[in-house]
């Protein structure tokens, strides 16, 4: 099921099939629309040529960190005697992000073809699609698609006479955001507790079962067939310099027309909000803007309007493109509550492995709860900023940063909202019994 009507400003590359009338994502439909041809093309190419095309395409990882995909594939020691693995990160748990779901739900064979091409590059014979536990129904869809692919001969032994063997399995997460972090995902996939690993070594060198592993986001893999189809150069040209192609962008929050839209990299924020997203709900003003999921520093409306949706533009403004999960907050939004909601998420999702994240998120959640309830003090506001700063850059994995960054930016940019909630503005003496009660 699609979330929303397509929009004419979209550039549909990854999503082109799913909008065709009657397209149902089966293997027959996928083949009818030219599916699996790029894999056959890849078989004719050398691994280095394929990596070359991916590099030329300027494809950057769509999971949030934006690491150049071609370069990552190049790190895999293909000569290693160990088995190689393909792992798809479909854990999609970042608040504001709901794009991988659209791809798996509507065009799962696109993902399978992307995996096949990656497998061809590194010589992997086994792959796993790790799907967020809450996406229970997507596992059924993915498994059905995998079954179809086996039956149609696109998975298994000696695929279509190419001599290539590749097995693929869908694997369910158990409801942990942290299992989207690549090394925690691998632990979880190996059947262990989803704590992150010490890196280096990185998955490309020692990933699943300590073997070389290509680990990418769903959208990253799904982009690869179109790169081979169009050629890396043409694909890159869809976007801007250093960030090629299109990005599935999730418009969430106070949009008139929220949804998942495929936009070219570098798409202007203003056009994205007002045209694609139909403008801010109820014609209100935009108070805050998060470009790529709740772990990005929050921008004020004024900061966000002139920007473009790409890695560099967002970095220059002090935020990140992240996973493409745009969250828009209109002027009615209570930013203290927003900060609390974000911290509630991270405190709940902290895996607990390291001290600063485990203790910091829990402490911050309590502080923010108190500030929101109106029983905080001015010192507490400083403390929020200070604790977030003390977590930043010191945790074991980036989840700690993900919790710290939005918090620090909200306190800095919306401090007045915190102050407005303080229990005892010094100038106002407590008089009525009601007030005493509300102080708790």
């Amino acid at each position: 099921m699609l979330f929303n009507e397509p929009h004419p400003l979209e550039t549909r590359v990854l999503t082109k099939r799913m909008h065709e009338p009657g397209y149902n994502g089966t293997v027959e439909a996928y083949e009818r629309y030219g599916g699996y041809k790029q894999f056959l093309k890849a078989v004719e190419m050398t691994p280095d040529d394929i990596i070359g095309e991916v590099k030329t395409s300027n494809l950057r990882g769509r999971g949030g960190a934006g690491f150049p995909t071609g370069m990552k594939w190049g790190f895999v020691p293909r000569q290693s005697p160990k088995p190689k693995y393909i792992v798809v990160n479909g854990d999609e748990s970042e608040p504001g992000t709901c794009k991988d779901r659209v791809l798996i739900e509507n065009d799962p064979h696109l993902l399978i073809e992307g995996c096949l091409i990656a497998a061809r590059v590194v010589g992997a014979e086994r792959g796993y699609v790790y799907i967020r536990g809450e996406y229970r129904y997507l596992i059924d869809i993915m498994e059905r698609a995998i079954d179809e692919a086996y039956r149609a001969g696109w998975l298994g032994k000696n695929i279509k006479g190419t001599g290539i063997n590749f097995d693929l399995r869908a694997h369910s997460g158990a409801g942990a955001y942290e299992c989207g972090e690549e090394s925690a995902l691998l632990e979880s996939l190996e059947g262990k507790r989803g704590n992150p690993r010490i890196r280096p070594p990185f998955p490309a060198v020692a990933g699943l079962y300590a073997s070389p592993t290509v680990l990418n986001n769903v959208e990253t893999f799904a982009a690869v067939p179109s790169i081979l189809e169009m050629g890396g150069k043409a694909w890159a040209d869809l976007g801007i310099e250093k960030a090629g192609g299109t990005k599935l962008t999730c418009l969430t929050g106070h949009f008139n027309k929220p949804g998942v839209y495929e936009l070219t990299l570098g798409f202007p924020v203003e056009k994205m909000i007002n045209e694609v997203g139909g403008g801010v709900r109820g014609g209100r003003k935009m108070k805050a803007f998060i470009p790529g999921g709740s772990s990005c520093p929050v921008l004020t409306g004024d900061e966000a309007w002139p920007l473009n949706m790409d890695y560099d533009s967002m970095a220059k403004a002090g935020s990140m493109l992240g996973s493409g999960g745009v969250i828009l907050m209109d002027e009615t939004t209570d930013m203290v509550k927003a900060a609390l909601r974000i911290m509630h998420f991270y405190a709940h999702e902290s895996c607990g492995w390291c001290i600063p994240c485990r203790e910091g998120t829990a402490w911050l959640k309590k502080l923010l709860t108190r500030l929101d309830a109106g029983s905080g003090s001015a010192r507490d506001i400083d403390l929020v900023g200070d604790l977030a700063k003390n977590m930043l850059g010191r945790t074991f994995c980036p989840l700690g940063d993900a919790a710290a960054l939005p918090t620090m930016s909200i306190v800095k940019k919306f401090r007045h909202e915190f102050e407005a909630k303080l229990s005892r503005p010094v100038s106002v003496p407590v008089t009525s019994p009601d007030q005493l009660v509300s102080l708790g």
Partner: protein
Amino acid sequence: MMTATPTEVTTVTLSINGQSVTAPAGTLLIEVCKKLGAEVPAFCYYEGFSLQAACRMCLVEIEKFPKLQASCTIPVSEGMVVRTESPAVVAARKDMLEFLLSNHPLDCPVCDKGGECELQDMTFRYGAGESRFTEIKVHTPEKQWSPVVFYDAPRCILCYRCVRVCDEGLGVGALGIQYRGVGAEIIPNMGDHLNCDECGACIDICPVGALTSGAYRYKTRPWEMNHVGTVCTHCSNGCKTTLGVRTDEIIRGNNRDHSGINGEFLCGKGRYAFDFNKHEDRLTSPLIRKDGQLVEVSWSEALKAVATKFSETQAAGGSFGVIGGVHSTNEENYFLQKFARQGLKTANIDHQRTGDVPALLDALSGKSDVLATTDDLYNTAAALVIGSDLAQQHPFLAYQLRANGRHHNARVYTVTPGKVREADYAAASLIYGSTAELFAKLDELRDRLKAEPELVILFSDAVKGADVAKLVAYGDSLGIKVKYVALVDYSNSRGALDMGLLPTLGPGYHAAPVSGLAAPDMLAAGLDVLWVMGADPGKGNAKFTVVQDMFLTPTAAAADIVLPSASAYEKSGTVTNVCGQVQKLKPAVRTMGTKPDLEIMGLIAREMGLNLGIWTHDHVLTEIRSSVAGYNVPLPVIQTGGAAQAQPVNGRVPLDGRPELVQSAQDTLFTSGTLGRYSKALTSVIEYPGKLYSDNQ
């Protein structure tokens, strides 16, 4: 021993706090800092166990890195410029401690760990002066996981040391983590209780008071105890245990400073099973059988009665038999055999034999450097375990091998009558049905062992008598350097052999001038007097029996005179472990009414007017050092709590040809002969009495 093939080690030069240092490439930065004396605080880093990088206490500043780096996981590299005391580093430590203390209960005034706590020490040194945490703390109730292990989650700092020592160190893997975020806590993997070795290694390694010991908790403050480092009196491995003593009572056994041969290792027996010492059934008065009943008498009456009996029997040309102990000190056993041979002029002397050391020494005659030490077990490239459930019967030796496997990829081979824990990492684990099949299994391994650069063979009583020579021939056939350990059961089983408690062998394995009866023959021979010191062989048909013991064992209960003796935790002297390492006992407490066996023997001798030399332990040790082959051990080593290697004879040993007398008692982790039966700590755990070669290892 056993030097590894020299490999090219490249060194790098780096700067730490402005000082230039060189170190082998790949060394962890935290280790290099430690060597230099630049203290880097750490909770989760623990030498020898896997890396965690979880506590973030060890963050340091390294030039060219945008963020502070965990020095416990960063290998040093050429040209690194490191600062361990920069303002950013100091601030980070302070902040980590602030986070750590935020949900900590701060119940230091009643915590067992108070005064010995790493969190206290770090907070004192690096922490902030004030607390900014004003929220309600997370609290969960304390849990009891077994009679000996308790867990208080609020105090836990989640350093995962306990999880690792149990899994990687012991090979048990009883502990894990449950829940996440601030609710994360340690749990037994089995559910709500432990079904494990009950070794308490987790308690020992815990930097805070989160894991506490059922034997010790809330009994005292650490600084109210005297700490007496002595040798565990249970199995033959000879671990150092530090007894915490307050007002003449042992309150705690632990591994306080890791200075013994056992490093951080100690099993449940060494840690908890000191409690036999104050068991209510301890004998505290001499007993003499009068009108068929054992009645309490004074020491002088009892000693006089023994001396009179001995003298009269001797005068009448009567027969004696003497059985010594496997927990008695070397001095006691040496003095006992001297008393028997020179004083009572009898050759009937023996003890409970549990491993065929004499046959091994005989088979190794002419070879040098062929007896393995506990250090060798940690360093050898390969080891072969025959006929022992090592993790249960020789827990420290098993720990050494496992650490060797973990740190040096040593290959361990086992040939045993059932499943053993070593199988989980062993290069090969073969099971034999009968002793005859044992050598067939060894033949299966021959080619693989030939490919090893060196080997240590540990064998139990499954190989004895002529089979020992056969085993050594097998070792010779491998064409590689082979060392051996003949496994024996108890804390001074090896010393009893070395001191000549055998009917055919005197001290140092020299032929006794006259051969006597072995223990079972003595019991059946209708002797006039049987004298038993620290053993429970049964009464037999002797006409008169004198027993020195701590408890009224079946032998003592049937005896004519019983003399209450002091335990190993109450006396001085030396003991020799399974590998021939000699260590000194230090008295920790006294039990009123008892006397050390050496003193008892000396008093009997005086009463009889015998001159057997001065009978204080240091005089007897001097005599042992000068007269027993291989026992000229350096005094300063043992006097300062070290272990000195005894070097027994190198030459043919006359054997008595009675291999059937060599029988291991097959103690498990939770049994320990008589002492074990009187330890409530051991008998209270659900695993008691345990089973060797059990399937759920």
